């Protein structure tokens, strides 16, 4: 199966729209939860090799705070919510009121870990429910798992499934920005990496044929 040949820019635009709807809802949920303005950038859909996946969020070596979960149901895949330690610390401080909390200085309190996990729960839930409404597919998130480590060590998990089929990934990437504090450090990413067979399912559900090239 070669995705490059079968999918046109039209298909990628559809994936972009899914990212738009999903992450739009997730950003609204995040704004409500934190009672802060969260801006979302127009999503990008990238067809990239594995090293480039790491580069999107700053390279394999960089330390990040991430929530990872499996998308289960009709169109399985992987979902990541990725933040810099500085940004994640801000979110934890907003949620817990613990002004001294910092992901740059371990060990982390259980409250901090579970608040990031809950953040992942709410965001993935709202992303998937809107994607589900749009596509009429049955989609639900697994229990989220959190890791604070290097980009490469974390994101490679999201590539395992598709690496058995391809040497590249289709990443539906949405950037969100905490409005209070601008700058590169304040950017977060939402990644959706559908398993290879899921693309067919998604396009079929929307009535878009995939065999025309």
């Amino acid at each position, binding site marked *: 199966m070669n995705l490059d040949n079968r999918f046109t820019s039209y298909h990628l635009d559809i994936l972009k729209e899914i990212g738009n709807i999903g992450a739009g809802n997730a950003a609204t949920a995040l704004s409500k939860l934190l009672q802060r303005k969260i801006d979302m950038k127009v999503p990008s859909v990238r067809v990239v090799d594995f090293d480039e996946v*790491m580069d999107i969020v700053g390279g394999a070596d960089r330390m990040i705070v991430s929530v990872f979960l499996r998308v289960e149901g009709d169109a399985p895949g992987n979902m990541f919510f990725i933040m810099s330690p500085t940004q994640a610390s801000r979110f934890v401080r907003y949620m817990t009121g613990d002004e001294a909390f910092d992901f740059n200085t371990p060990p982390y309190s259980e409250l901090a870990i579970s608040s990031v996990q809950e953040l992942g729960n709410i965001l993935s839930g709202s992303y998937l429910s809107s994607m589900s409404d749009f596509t009429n597919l049955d989609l639900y998130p697994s229990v989220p798992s959190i890791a604070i480590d290097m980009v490469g060590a974390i994101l490679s998990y999201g590539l395992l499934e598709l690496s058995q089929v391809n040497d590249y990934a289709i990443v539906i990437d949405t950037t969100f920005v905490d409005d209070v504090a601008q700058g590169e450090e304040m950017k977060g990413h939402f990644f959706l990496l559908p398993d290879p067979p899921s693309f067919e399912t998604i396009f079929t559900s929307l009535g878009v044929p995939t065999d025309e090239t």
Partner: protein
Amino acid sequence: MKHDFVVKVGIADLNIVHDPAVIRTSGLGSCIGVVIYDLRAKLGGMAHVMLPDSSLAKGEHIKLAKYADTAIPMLMELLRKEGGKTFKAKLAGGAQMFQFQSNDMMRIGPRNLEAVKKQLKDYGVPIAAEDCGGSNGRTIEFNPSNGALQIRTVNKGVTEI
């Protein structure tokens, strides 16, 4: 970890270096960094192995450096071509970053490690040292002039095996 010549190995990739260059791969999670070296020839090779077995491949084209059972034969061939004769190996990686029970893929670290060790045994390459398992990512750098493998983690700083 500062050197003049650093050869970088990406995910599912491999390469070799001669002294005075060093070779590095970043962000190993469940993947294994396999280093095979010949100290006398001051020659070292590194593979960033992602999956245990090329029979898992569902695509038409197989990237040899991705799988333990194809990466190690390829690395051995390259090293022999460059004059390597007596080999040893050092390993790092194979962690379990997430605690999922539902998916077999999530326990890939130990499976990768087992597959790498089997290949090394088949080639008769002894393992001089290893730092595998756990739940943390690793960035590794190998120096073929003295056979030292430096391992950097987020929380424990730099160690050497």
